[in-house]
């Protein structure tokens, strides 16, 4: 078994260079870098009054309302049997309480009564719109959309903006993610622009936000380099390609420019010269296997609880529980036109019970047990938490309630292991459930996936 922090050392080594890696006193479980020391910088963009940019723990800079609550968009998405979501300038999330499924997910037709229909909320109940005043004026990419109910709503880049009732404090992004979500009409956090030169972008992974070239090549730095000085020459250049900056490039934010040789300039980030790995396929992290070379993070996600581990699987690195069993997250959105979430404990649990135990909560406990948390569990971050769950109904319970379990949760969603995984790194329940686990099912908690869909 490999302790979480040991394996992630290489992933986090850039922060070692920044001096933020701190070994634990007992020498076995070093802490992750202090997240407050390293946060991604963002571009200052014109915004209407009352809005702000919040740098969140996993998604990085996002637009937020005056309370600091994350804003989301719902971009239109073509599903198997039709589109869902919103087109630019056309808010459709309203007070309609849908009672039947839409039939957008082949092979099943629509028209069947949805679970818990008597208490089913509307889209607006779950996604309060960012309303604009009558006299509001567009600012930059912020525009004003006219709602059918007569109200005006802020939009960014044309897409109407909402908050999520799942976010209860500034900095949480519980309503949606920017990563892969399969064929589901999900909401996306409204990303604020990262402060990166046009040659770069930032990719959200479960381990943090990594620098990527605009061509989707992972960006690396070398421990053999010195601040603002590249030592990668000659043979080194057969495997590593300096990311060349144009002659007109100027230092900005955390990015700098060094002159490698007369007239040849190279980008740096936090004074580290930047490279790509020759021959590496897009979006992979192979280069971090080479001693002394590291993926470059703009920021790291807070560490999972200390008892979690990292395991090597046939696909890559996956989060494990303290026994090394692969950790899974449950994903669910219902098939109504408003595509409401069903993966949080307060939503209908019949979806999850269907795929984990044929509708039987007891069988679900045997097959996808919760990852138990100590009663005094604390994480110190917003991503990971512990909650009380009544396993007989799958919903939140009162502390110490009879039969309740105290379990670990990620983004306010409990995490699980799987009974068929026998040894560390087994991943037999990845994509378990409807539509490869995205619509109503389980996905392994990938920290690095060298094969398959990028989910990390």
């Amino acid at each position, binding site marked *: 078994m490999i302790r979480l922090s040991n394996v992630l050392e290489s992933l986090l080594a850039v922060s070692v260079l920044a001096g933020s890696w701190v070994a634990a006193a007992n020498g076995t479980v070093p802490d992750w870098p202090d997240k407050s020391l390293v946060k991604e910088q963002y571009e200052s963009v014109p915004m209407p009054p009352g809005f702000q940019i919040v740098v969140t723990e996993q998604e990085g800079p996002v637009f937020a309302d005056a309370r600091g609550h994350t804003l989301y968009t719902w971009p239109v998405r073509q599903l198997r049997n039709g589109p869902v979501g919103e087109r630019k300038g056309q808010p459709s999330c309203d007070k309609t309480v849908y009672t039947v499924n839409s039939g957008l997910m082949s092979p099943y037709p629509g028209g069947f009564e949805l679970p818990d229909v008597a208490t089913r909320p509307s889209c607006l109940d779950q996604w309060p719109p960012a309303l604009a005043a009558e006299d509001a004026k567009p600012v930059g990419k912020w525009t004003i959309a006219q709602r059918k109910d007569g109200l005006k709503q802020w939009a960014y880049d044309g897409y109407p903006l909402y908050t999520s009732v799942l976010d209860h404090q500034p900095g949480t992004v519980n309503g949606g993610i920017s990563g892969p979500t399969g064929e589901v009409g999900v909401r996306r956090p409204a990303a604020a622009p990262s402060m990166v030169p046009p040659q770069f972008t930032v990719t959200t992974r479960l381990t943090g936000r990594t620098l990527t070239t605009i061509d989707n090549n992972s960006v690396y730095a070398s421990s053999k380099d010195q601040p603002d000085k590249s030592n990668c020459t000659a043979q080194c250049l057969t495997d590593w390609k300096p990311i060349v900056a144009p002659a007109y490039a100027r230092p900005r934010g955390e990015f700098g420019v060094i002159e490698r040789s007369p007239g040849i300039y190279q980008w740096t980030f936090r004074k580290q010269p930047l490279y790509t790995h020759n021959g590496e396929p897009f979006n992979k992290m192979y280069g971090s296997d080479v001693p002394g070379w590291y993926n470059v993070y703009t920021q790291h996600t807070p560490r999972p609880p200390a008892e979690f581990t990292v395991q090597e699987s046939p696909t890559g690195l996956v989060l494990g529980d303290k026994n090394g069993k692969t950790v899974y997250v449950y994903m669910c959105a219902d098939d109504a036109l408003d595509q409401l979430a069903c993966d949080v404990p307060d939503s209908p649990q019949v979806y999850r019970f269907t795929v984990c135990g044929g509708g039987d909560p007891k069988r679900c406990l045997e097959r996808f047990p919760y990852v138990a948390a100590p009663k005094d569990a604390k994480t110190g971050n917003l991503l990971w938490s512990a909650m009380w769950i009544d396993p007989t109904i799958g919903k939140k319970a009162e502390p110490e309630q009879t039969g309740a379990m105290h379990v670990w949760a990620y983004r306010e969603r409990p995490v699980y292991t799987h009974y*068929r995984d026998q040894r560390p790194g087994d991943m037999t329940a990845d994509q378990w459930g409807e539509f490869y686990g995205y619509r109503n099912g389980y996905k392994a908690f990938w920290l690095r996936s*060298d*094969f398959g869909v990028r989910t990390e």
Partner: protein
Amino acid sequence: MINEHRYSFSLIASALLLPALACAADSPAAASSKVNWVPPGGRIGYVLTNEVSWGIRETPDHKEECPNGFNIGPREQFAQLYPKDGKKRTLVETQLEREGQIWSPDTTPDEFPFYEATGKYALGIDLDGKDTPEDFESDDGRKGIDNQLFRVVGCVRNYRQEGELGIITTKWRAQKPFNRVTFELTGVDSLENDPDVTVSYYRTLDTLLAGPTGNYMPGGSQRVDTRWGKRFIGTAKGRIVNGVLETKPFDQLLMPEDGMGDPAINIFRTAQLRLKLTPEKAEGLLGGFIDVEQWYYAMNTSWATHHAAYGQASAASIYKALHRLADGFPDPRTHQNTAISGYLSIKLVQAYVVHSEAEKNIVAAKR
């Protein structure tokens, strides 16, 4: 791409490439017409390019193996169970009920007719050394052929050449890097007849060498995946008889299966190979007793109901048939068989296997 950290080019060159180049006259391409050709150093690799089928012997009009026709799939079963008759139904009693049967299947009698493939002949190997009434005969007259998986999927369109697996899986088998596996024969004194060769199995890392029309060509190289592929590595003894490789059983052979999205793995217990070899390619069967539960869930995590419906593959019905026809590895507690005899019909092309120092440690640790 050669990663300096993981692979020593000098090792590669000295062990494989240079001998191969130096013996250009003995290269597979040059030797294709020779009899009793000896690969350089007694070593030849074959990388899997095509997964033709799950060991299905198809006849042109399917009347021989599927006289009753093909099975219906999820869409048709759903329509029969819940006809458009104006009756109001809930999602729980329809869609979720059906998905529940996929993810929590049982072995109760199927509510739909299930047509097993039948007939005298099948692809395969006599895996257990017995000739029993449920066994088949091969087209070349071998008796005692164990292939019960053929009975399960032989009349399911998805698994036939016309089905989605036949069309798409073959493409993905070649395209998706997770699926790349390579066999290497060592100690080969003749590719025509050799009573004692060693066959090693690896997950490998490189793209296939393809020609301008997409045909896969011999002569490429494949690096052994020592980073994530440790658990795939295996070895078995074998022999070559009249150009056909027959192996003794591998204890267990893990076959990666990356269909849609994230990958799965199938487990062949007591796996055996039967491959027609030439210096340039190999073709035949990988067979064994396939872990039923693993095969079933690998199928479902790789193929959503939507995609399975294209090929009329009803997971719940297949599960019942799998357990009904399972014929190996009984559970000591329940005495129920946990594995089913089955095959992958495969095609491979010659490739140079690139080894690394790290591999030695892995192999040593497995011993």
